[in-house]
């Protein structure tokens, strides 16, 4: 007979939503096991390599759905390992959004002011810092100059990047070889391990069932380390409390698959998915105009030709991040580097009567790659995504040995979403085609529909049981002791990169998780400092933490 493994807290996923609670719960004295479906790589294993089987395809997932493809992390550290570390806070008006449900989407307990102390904790822990102009890549500087030329403002975005270590290699998606990007592998996760937290890579949780004593049993598959299509075994682990943080593309799928054993799920599980309103435009810059109109020149005498140099997004235009504007008309426009190999096919040739995404002219466009500039739109979408029947295992039927799979998400953009994208497209064009600076076109949505690197809201917090799966403490309605703390808990598109908000909400969820654990007999005490021992963030959240710990 196989002994059943037991722990106090089982955490599913090791990105922001998993690593942050795991650290605090472990530091507070609980026995914590983290189950991560992806592999565990360290910095010396992060490669500058697009070859299938390199760290790029091992740690990164691309799940194609019907109308929406989701790009996400798949490794210990989750999204933090593959993200581009842009960490702005969500603007205040976002927390008042009503979407199309006729009421405020966020819980009344959360406003920007109320979330700021939790943002501060994350900023202290990673850390996150404002970016200086001499840390901004050529591409970011070019976008800033183009915005200024059009009478716009532009901001260097706050980042979780150690500028002294950053080589501007633009290989962030494959994991940072230089420990410049402040992923969770450098803070929360090592601190959690010090406190006895066990992290189990290549453990993909499939479903949850309830034990007669009210505890939960997690059923997982062991995933082959090279070919993720293969399983090498399976197992179970029992826990008093479950923290689900498998990502907005996977958490609802686990809950859907658990419904037979756990009983009915809240209606909002697997609904209201948001792609954070994301869409890309690629411009081909006119190097002469960059020099003559914007007055830019690199020290080698070239005006730009620097698309491949940088660290993802550096500069954003926030002129439309404006709470005085109506909902669905607000967005940010952020310069971005999109790595090769996945999205290049979607970039369209501007102003052509021929095929836009392939053919002779597209190849000519590729020859101008060094003069590309990609602009990332984050509009307010309408939470249109709905998950269909779960696949047999995981959150996708895997096609390739790594990275590429087909999932069950359906997304049909509403008229408001389409209008917002069209307005943002026009805005990008008005900035970049002014005075012949560039030719620009949005990426095609004809091939795979929309796409997002920031999946959100598929199991969201809120006050309304009909339109939110979680209460304001992230506990799954009707299933006490199950908490969701990843991007799926964020109620809506944010008009900015969401990692900072996901992390702040995960910090905020910890006191409530601990209260539930104590009710279930777990001895655990809240109050750990930041992973490096800093304490100013803890002071700022003390009052709210006490409120959230109500039992």
């Amino acid at each position, binding site marked *: 007979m196989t002994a059943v493994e037991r722990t106090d807290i089982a955490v599913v996923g090791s990105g922001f939503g998993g690593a942050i609670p795991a650290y605090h719960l472990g530091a507070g004295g609980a026995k914590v096991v983290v189950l991560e479906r992806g592999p565990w790589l360290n910095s010396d294993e992060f490669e500058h390599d697009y070859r299938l089987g390199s760290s790029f395809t091992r740690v990164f997932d691309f799940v194609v759905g019907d109308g929406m493809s989701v790009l996400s992390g798949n490794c210990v550290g989750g999204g933090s390992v593959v993200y581009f570390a842009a960490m702005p*806070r969500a603007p205040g008006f976002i927390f008042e959004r009503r979407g199309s449900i006729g009421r405020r989407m966020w819980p009344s307990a959360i406003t*920007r002011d109320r979330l700021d102390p939790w943002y501060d904790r994350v900023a202290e822990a990673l850390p996150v810092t404002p970016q200086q102009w001499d840390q901004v890549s050529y591409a970011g*500087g070019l976008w800033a100059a183009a915005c200024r030329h059009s009478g*716009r403002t532009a901001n260097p975005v706050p980042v979780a990047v150690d500028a002294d270590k950053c080589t501007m290699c633009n290989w962030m998606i494959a994991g940072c070889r230089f420990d410049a990007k402040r992923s969770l592998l450098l803070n929360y996760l090592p601190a959690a391990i010090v406190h006895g937290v066990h992290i189990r890579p290549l453990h993909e949780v499939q479903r949850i069932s309830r034990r007669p004593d009210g505890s939960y049993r997690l059923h997982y598959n062991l995933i082959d380390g090279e070919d993720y299509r293969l399983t090498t075994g399976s197992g179970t682990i029992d826990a008093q409390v479950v923290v689900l943080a498998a990502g907005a593309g996977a958490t609802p799928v686990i809950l859907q698959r658990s419904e037979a054993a756990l009983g009915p799920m809240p209606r909002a599980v697997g609904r209201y998915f948001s792609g954070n309103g994301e869409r890309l435009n690629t411009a081909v810059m006119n190097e002469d105009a960059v020099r003559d109109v914007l007055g830019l020149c690199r020290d080698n005498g070239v005006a730009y030709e620097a698309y491949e140099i940088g660290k993802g997004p550096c500069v954003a235009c926030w002129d439309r991040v404006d709470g005085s504007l109506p909902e669905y008309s607000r967005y940010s426009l952020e310069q971005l580097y999109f790595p*090769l190999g996945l999205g290049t096919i979607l970039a369209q040739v501007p102003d052509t009567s021929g095929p836009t995404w392939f053919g002779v002219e597209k190849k000519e466009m590729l020859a101008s790659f060094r003069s590309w500039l990609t602009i990332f739109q984050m509009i307010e979408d309408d939470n249109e995504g709905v998950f269909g029947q779960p696949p047999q295992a995981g959150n996708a039927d895997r096609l390739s040995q790594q990275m590429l799979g087909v999932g069950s998400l359906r997304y049909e953009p509403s008229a408001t979403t389409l209008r917002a994208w069209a307005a943002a497209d026009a805005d990008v064009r008005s900035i970049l085609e002014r005075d012949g600076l560039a030719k620009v076109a949005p990426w095609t949505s004809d091939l795979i529909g929309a796409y997002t690197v920031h999946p959100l809201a598929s199991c969201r917090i809120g006050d309304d049981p009909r339109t939110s799966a979680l209460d304001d403490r992230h506990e799954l309605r009707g299933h006490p002791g199950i908490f969701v703390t990843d991007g799926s808990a964020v109620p809506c598109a944010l008009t900015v990169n969401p990692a900072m908000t996901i992390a702040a909400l995960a910090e905020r969820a910890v006191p409530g998780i601990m209260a539930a654990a104590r009710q279930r007999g777990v001895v655990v005490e809240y109050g750990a400092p930041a992973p490096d021992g800093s304490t100013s963030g803890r002071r700022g959240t003390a009052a709210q933490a006490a409120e959230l710990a109500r039992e």
Partner: protein
Amino acid sequence: MTLEAFADTILPGQKRVADDVAIAGVAAGPGAVAAGALELLGWPATGITGLLPDLVKALNSHAASYAATRELALDPRLPAFPALAFEHRTALVLILTATGHQEKAMWVLLALFSYMAFDAAAHLHTASAVTGGHPGLATLGLTQPDDDGLWRFPRNSYGRSLADPHPDTTPTGSPA
């Protein structure tokens, strides 16, 4: 030959020999075929390798129907897709990848791997592909890596303020 003709329709290149059929020769310089599209498609790690015989059959069947509908004469010695002129190969790819086509996902996937051979050399180690002059990566103009196969760009910024920040920016650098 059929898969080469498809890859060449996606990212065209110059003919390898004067009587090259698969490569239509409508663009100067190397295209997806020279970049290694067939090598990538033939690697089981992609997940598409086992499907290729059926895709070839289906593509030629679609090409034959396309030609018949338009009363195009095809060279009977050739598979139907490579027998099409480039403009018709292009038109057929547009049909197969259009919204609503039942097999769209498979043709998009075939196009995606044709791209990945060219713009990422996903069948090769990137550093050695760049130093070895891989035709796709050379077309993009990727910079040569350092001796250890990693990229570093010590010169990376214009180094000066190039725009005014939004007036509502908070001290943390975020929007208010």
